[in-house]
């Protein structure tokens, strides 16, 4: 154990990934043509530049969604432990909500929820 296992692990990882690539190279029959270089093979050909700008609102909404998503995930372990911890748990979760709410209020005040 110890050093030997670490070295074996690293070698095995390299051998596994290199082997997978090598086998794929040997087994498949490689063809090269123009269609292969397209972003979507046998899809609709793209028109115009693909670097389009998108509305920054999307990412603001995603961020705000994330706040409440994380809040909800925190609520599950809290709910399991709440009965054991007692009143203190309730106070702590209210403080937690308050902090999140302030952040939300800030975003609202900044107009993050307006779709322009």
């Amino acid at each position, binding site marked *: 154990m*110890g*050093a030997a296992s*670490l070295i074996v692990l690293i070698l095995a990882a390299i051998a596994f990934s290199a082997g997978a690539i090598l086998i794929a190279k040997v087994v498949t029959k490689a063809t090269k043509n123009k269609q292969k270089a397209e972003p979507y093979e046998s899809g609709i050909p793209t028109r115009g530049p693909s670097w389009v700008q998108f509305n920054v609102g999307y990412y603001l909404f995603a961020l705000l969604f994330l706040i409440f998503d994380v809040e909800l995930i925190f609520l599950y372990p809290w709910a399991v432990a709440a009965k054991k911890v007692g009143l203190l748990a309730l106070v702590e979760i209210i403080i937690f909500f308050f902090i999140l709410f*302030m952040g939300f*209020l*800030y975003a609202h*005040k900044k107009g993050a929820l307006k779709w322009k």
Partner: protein
Amino acid sequence: MSIFFLLLQQELLLTAIIFVLLFVKLSTKQWNSQTVLSFVNILLVVNLAAGFFFKEKGTLFGDMFQTNDLLRFEKNILNLGTLLISLQAYNWLLKHKHAIEFYLLMLSTLLGMFFMLSSSNLLMFYVGLELASIPLAALANFDLDKKRSSEAAMKYIMSSAFASGLLLFGISLIYGMVGSVNFTDIAVAASENPLFLFGFILLIAGFGFKISAVPFHLWTADVYEGAPVAVTSYLSVISKGSMLFVMTSVLSTVFANLLFQWYNIVAVLAVLSMIVGNLFAIRQQNIKRFLAFSSISQVGFILIGMSGANIESHSSVVYFVLVYLFSNLAAFAVINVISEASGKENIDDYKGLYKTNPALTWVLAIALFSLAGIPPTAGFFGKFFLLLGGASKGNYLLIIVAALNMVISLYYYLRIIKAMFMDANETPVEKLAISWSPKISMAVCMAGIVVTGIISGAYEYIYSLLK
């Protein structure tokens, strides 16, 4: 419940200030920015003063959080630095649209650093570190109309995310070997098991990114150059200082069993940082890039002190960070005033500064003397104690390399002083009127450089805290 408030006093006060500022921002009344900034600075003074009043020590949250006299003192140092930076940034923020957000982000990072300092658990440490580094990227982008600033933020967030990745991998390996993330458990279980050592080395790499020790320093110069001056000084003093505090105490307490291993790593990092920092600093034209490389070489000296791994060397690191805070912030105060008034940031623009602005020139000269380590200033004693701490291991080759590097560093610090005092310039920086807030900041820094150097009480106080 009351012990909860007493132990978390500094953190709770900061959180309260953040919320007060949020309320100010959310209120319907449109506040005058001068009033708001004065109000924030008063709050920061209160925050600094309140830090000296409590002495309780203990642990909280199931040994996740600890506090003691040394940690309180270190937090007070960080509070002082934040206050000085806030005073220096006053004129810049007066014109800025998002002054309150600047403080919200800056105080959030400070709060993260406090939790990082007080952590006695790797997970708590990591949470504190992330809270300290994510808002910093937003701060680096605070010159909203400058592209360089965005570039700095991008580079900072990329490299700090990479460093966090290394750190997390290291933490997971250590957890895998020990079965616990508690510092006391790790200290007992630390062994020369290769997987544990691998995790430990990754942990040091994560530390190295934050203090910009040499193989991990590549982000430093670009981020320092692009970020606003106030944020640059925050990065180079507060962010780096807090990480140095944590690294010193973690290495000497948690990984004390692995002293032989980490002594070599830290010594190599120190030598590389000093040499590379110095050689690159010689060639810099931009003064912010110059100070970035100078701070890298200073980190090399601090790492030498850290390698001593006893009480003397630990207190020498804390003492040097205090001295470095005063010296570096004095230099940044002058740079901030000049860059704010004229937009000039090149070393060539500082030629002939003495003719037009003698007071600013003297402040910058004393700050650079202190950074170089010339005797009457505090920088000399700081470096002296660092080398003394490093020499306790008996590795005199390391000390000789450090001494040689001090000579090299003298060359480039004196180059700026020569430019300011002796060189002629056709278009020098015109005579500047300095407003009260940078003046106070410079006066405090000057007093700090002189007082912490001449009066030995500062070092002895830190030493007594560690005993």
